[in-house]
């Protein structure tokens, strides 16, 4: 698109133009009002004064006759008040007044006339405009009473000119300002558009330019950048997951293949059977891994958030603890719960139970030091606006530097490699927490691990 047209099409420019029109209209109205109140009103006052004077002179004539009016005219003409008087007889000869002769005028009996008059100003002569009323006295005399309105006219024209200049300046400034603003706006939008193009072209590291003024465009750019960060980290996670999945599936598949090939080579019935049985075991484990991956993906995608209902987490705690308590006892340990009712959360019973199951399962596996038995406590409480369900053990715990990565898929700490597991348990817990807008917090239980499910407390709609 032609850049100039593009500029005129920006929303900023349109907005500026609209404001400009509004501004011009209001300026015109304001100045028009001033003009009306000054120039027009002054002119009207002049007219009224002249008319009153004509009336007064006519009265003089009526009361005191010709002598009276001549006296008055002569007296008034002597004053340098800017007034103009002329009394002539019917043939046009001057009888009295400070005007030499009758100006050109229409034949009407009584009318407003305007004519130029040379006025002596010191040494120079100036041509002024005179506005006068021409009246007919009793059919035998002509009376002209007027005023020098040059100053008035000049004042009016100054006001008019001011109005035009003001309008012109407002238009130029408004238009120019609008163009400048739009150009600035357009430049920044173009920068954002360009940035998004480069990102679309594959440069995931690209970000929207931020000026630092924290205006709406900056906020938009910041929001977009946050979105891009999130997308980038998701993509990185996905890449890592797929390579981890590939690796984690390759290992058991290689094992299966090797075992089956060895069995085929041996040719013995017993070997066949053993290989097949191990193959079933191994594929069961693979399927478990797949199912766990699917559950995590489903929880993380937040698909089933609509399925969340208000539920008392205390009942989930007591159910899961009841399910696992005999197992802890079997291993010579203890599993006790301490959760009072009223831990309302928006949740999915199955997923929360599964998350808690994973934590308790971990605690049973890793929650005891060499030669000790697992002592596990599950507590549930409301803290501030959160429901906190904590599973505490007295095992080796997780080193602070490892706490961040144990929730990644397939991460198994060296100390746990000797025990069965697929490295997906805590990933699932963290996925379930994400779905519930909660967090999994891993802390030192000194000694041991304290794994906390922190969920937003659900307030009953009142």
């Amino acid at each position, binding site marked *: 698109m032609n850049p100039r047209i593009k500029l005129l099409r920006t929303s900023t420019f349109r907005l500026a133009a609209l404001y400009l029109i509004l501004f011009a209209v209001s300026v015109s109205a304001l100045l028009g009002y001033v003009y009306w109140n000054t120039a027009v009103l002054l002119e009207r006052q002049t007219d009224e004064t002249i008319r009153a004077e004509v009336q007064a002179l006519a009265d003089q004539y009526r009361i005191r006759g010709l002598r009276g009016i001549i006296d008055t005219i002569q007296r008034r003409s002597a004053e340098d008040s800017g007034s103009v008087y002329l009394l002539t007889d019917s043939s046009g000869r001057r009888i009295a007044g400070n005007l030499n002769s009758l100006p050109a005028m229409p034949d009407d009996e009584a009318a407003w006339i305007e004519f130029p008059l040379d006025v002596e100003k010191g040494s120079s002569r100036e041509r002024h405009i005179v506005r006068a009323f021409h009246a007919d006295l009793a059919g035998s005399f002509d009376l002209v009473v007027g005023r020098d309105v040059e100053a008035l006219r000049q004042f009016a024209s100054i006001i008019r000119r001011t109005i035009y200049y003001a309008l012109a300046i407002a238009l130029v400034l408004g238009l120019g300002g609008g163009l400048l603003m739009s150009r600035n706006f357009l430049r920044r939008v173009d920068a954002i558009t360009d940035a998004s193009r480069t990102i679309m072209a594959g440069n995931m590291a690209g970000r929207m330019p931020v000026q630092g003024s924290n205006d709406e465009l900056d906020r938009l750019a910041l929001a977009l950048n946050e979105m891009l960060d999130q997308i980038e980290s998701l993509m990185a996670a996905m890449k890592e997951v797929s390579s981890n999945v590939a690796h984690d599936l390759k290992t058991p598949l290689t094992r299966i293949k090797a075992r089956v090939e060895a069995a085929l080579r041996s040719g013995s019935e017993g070997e066949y059977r053993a290989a097949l049985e191990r193959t*079933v075991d191994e594929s069961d484990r693979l399927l478990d891994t797949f199912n766990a991956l699917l559950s995590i993906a489903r929880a993380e995608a937040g698909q*089933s958030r609509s399925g969340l209902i208000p539920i008392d987490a205390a009942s989930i705690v007591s159910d899961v603890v009841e399910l696992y308590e005999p197992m802890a006892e079997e291993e010579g340990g203890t599993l006790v719960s301490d959760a009072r009712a009223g831990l309302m959360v928006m949740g999915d019973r199955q997923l929360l139970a599964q998350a808690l199951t994973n934590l308790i*399962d971990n605690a049973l596996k890793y929650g005891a030091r060499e030669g000790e038995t697992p002592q596990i406590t599950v507590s549930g409480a409301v803290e501030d606006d959160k429901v906190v369900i904590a599973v505490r053990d007295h095992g080796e715990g997780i080193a602070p530097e490892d706490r961040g990565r144990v929730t990644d898929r397939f991460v198994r700490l060296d100390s746990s490699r000797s025990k069965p597991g697929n490295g997906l348990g805590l990933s699932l817990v963290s996925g379930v927490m994400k779905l519930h807008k909660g967090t999994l917090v891993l802390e030192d239980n000194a000694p041991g691990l304290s794994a906390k499910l922190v969920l937003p407390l659900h307030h009953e709609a009142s």
Partner: protein
Amino acid sequence: MQLKELDSPLWTAKPARQPMRILVIEDDREAAGWLVKGLAESGHVADHAGDGEEGLNLASEGVHDVLIVDRMLPKIDGLTIIRKLRENGIKTPVLILSALSDVDERVKGLRAGGDDYLGKPYAFAELLARIENLGHRSVDAPLATRLRAADLEIDLLTRTVTRGGKPIVLQPREFKLLEYLVRNAGHIVTRTMLLENVWDYHFDPQTNVIDVHISRLRSKIDKGYDEPILQTVRGAGYMIRDT
């Protein structure tokens, strides 16, 4: 739940005590073939329909004891088949078999009129236990207040258990567990079935928690008796003797 041993006596040697006629509606020929073979070896008679239309026609005859219905089928999908059958008053128990195995899908299947839901891939022993459970469920009197299996008796009203007249004290969950086993007396109950029906958990806890509960229950109802009533069926699950 992993079913480790495949040499289960359940479907290699022992014929079913109540042979059933089962209709398998499944479009994957190979999977259906294995399924029909397995069911026949277990002493049942199995028919096969390869698409939804044929399946609906065969099922509409109403001669089968149990239907095994895949969800994604050519022509008519599984849930529609079940809905149409129910609309036409055919109440044959249905086990839905599907790769769509999460809880939402399970709920959809059961709402459509399915009686049980099993996600693919499944262990054959699990499927067989569920089929037999469905097959005999239809003849049970669900409103009975007393359940009996061999010399064990459960009074559902007073929530008391006696064996040979001697009272046995059980925890509430143990009572529920025993009740479910006795309701299915003579039939195998898998660990997954127990998790679903006694605890209402539809996920796999990956550990043998159920075994521990069973052994606790066993210590209460079998200790001191010559003949154990609660049996472990290798590679499949558990069973309460009914005689």
